[in-house]
């Protein structure tokens, strides 16, 4: 455990709130009366994935957590868990519902190195690389002549069946880059 001053916390910090680990999603700093400040924090409970909002005085002392992290690769889905493997071939099962933001990109044979975070030895979250490459399984035929990238159309990814908006010139079988933070199409791979 470490002490975190509320005014100093940043997105991605992990805190213990009401005996549960939470990750800070956003922080707002507002000047209150005199020279005090109110910090509004949006957090995700790492055990339940529940989103919560709280406020603190800027000088409140909070409990920060230094978490263990390991690089892993995705292995397979064994309902209701996804299995990840580290460099020593240790396997870690992570519940599907904890991976809500990530699950749509998990595909067999994927080689992306993922960062798995552990709380008290238990894997609690997975962060994908900021950019990943996936294959388009289906999209409407490319619009002739439009190469600007401004006109978008839906596309479905291979394996995961996740749908996202891609540029109109993308075709079936194309490999595309996706920003995992925003979930948006970045570009077509050459």
């Amino acid at each position, binding site marked *: 455990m470490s002490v975190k001053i509320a005014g100093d916390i940043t997105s991605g910090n992990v805190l*213990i*709130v*009401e*005996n549960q680990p939470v990750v800070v999603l956003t922080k*707002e700093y*507002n*000047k*209150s*009366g*005199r*020279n*005090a400040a*109110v910090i*509004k924090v949006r957090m995700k409970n790492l055990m339940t994935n529940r989103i919560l*909002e*709280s*406020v*603190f*005085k800027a000088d*409140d*002392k*909070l*409990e920060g957590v230094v978490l263990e992290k390991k690089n892993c690769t995705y292995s397979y889905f064994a309902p209701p868990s996804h299995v990840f493997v580290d460099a020593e071939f240790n396997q870690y099962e992570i519940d599907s519902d904890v991976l809500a933001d990530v699950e749509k990109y998990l595909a067999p044979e994927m080689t992306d190195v993922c960062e798995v975070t552990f709380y008290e030895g238990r894997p609690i979250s997975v962060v994908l690389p900021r950019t990943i490459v996936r294959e388009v399984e289906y999209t409407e035929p490319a619009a002739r002549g439009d190469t600007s990238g401004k006109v978008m159309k839906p596309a479905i990814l291979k394996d995961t069946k996740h749908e996202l908006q891609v540029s109109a010139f993308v075709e079936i079988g194309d490999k595309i880059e996706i920003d995992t933070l925003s979930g948006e199409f970045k570009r077509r791979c050459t």
Partner: protein
Amino acid sequence: MRRWDIFCRVVDNFGDIGTCWRLAQQLANEHRAVVRLWVDRLESFARLCPTVLTDAAVQDVDSIEIRHWRSDFPEVDVADVADVVIEAFACELPENYLAAMTRRIVAPVWINLEYLSAEAWVEDCHLLTSPQPRSSLTKHFFFPGFSARTGGLLRERDLLKTRDAFDSAAATEFWSSLGIAPQKNGEIRVSLFCYANTALPELVQTWIESRNPIVVLASQGAATEQIAAILEETLVPGVSSCRQALTVHALPFLPQPDYDRLLWACDVNFVRGEDSFVRAQWAQRPFVWQIYPQADEAHLVKLEAFLERFLEKFDHSDVVRRCWRAWNGRGDIGSAWPEFVSNRSLIQQHGEVWAFQLDRLGNLANNLSYFACGK
């Protein structure tokens, strides 16, 4: 009956204790609550409420138990912890008291009563929880404010009725109690309660050269001291000072009910900080606000946020905006004042509409009590 403990640290001036004392009285008188008010500086409190003894560790005033909050706070028995604990303006609770709160079987409702601001973020933070790792208790942030998404403003149940009953005869009687002659035709009476203000010398000069007689009722402290320095005269209560159109009366320190009467009796009120600012809105007279100055000029953002809300439905908003900005160091008070005062009947009408709107939000003590009961 629920027991409430209100903790108040007097940082400077009288705003902290003024607000806490009003809240304590309202909870006791209108919500039948058993209220204990902890105050660190009884001498400040005694100025507002002359029956308060400055050397008593425990005393009862108007059915409220007043406790002197000393730095060596005594050990607290769990049974002595109130059902609702208010830390006013984010003051830190004493460690001993906090420890006793933690030991209580049913956790008390713990509320941080925040500062008043018209900024939009206040609405998003009102009533949010603040889990406290050191105590394993949860605090709630409660914000006063000007919209239905905040806790509203302090207002006693009968305040508006009492204000409406304050007629010209009552005003004459009030002036007489201060040793001041009744208001004459054409004369403009101005109450002045302010912090140190660099716009004041120019305003005083404008008053001196005014076409209408201006009678200024200067509150004890910064207002009187600055005017005395500008006029190079000694100002004391009971003696007036005249310069052409301007007459200045230095007031003694007025207890809260008398300060309300002063606001009702004057044509224009200069107010400051939080408590007098709120009372001026209930007084429904044209008023000019000097906001508490903050580092990095954060106060100017708060000033604009209030002006935005207050003047949203007022056609002559620029007149008010110019005067308020100038009074807060952003503009020329010499040209803003004549324009403000000549529009005062329109500003007053707007103030009446505004107070009606505020009244519909419910008042802060009711909203606070309702929230605490639901926990």
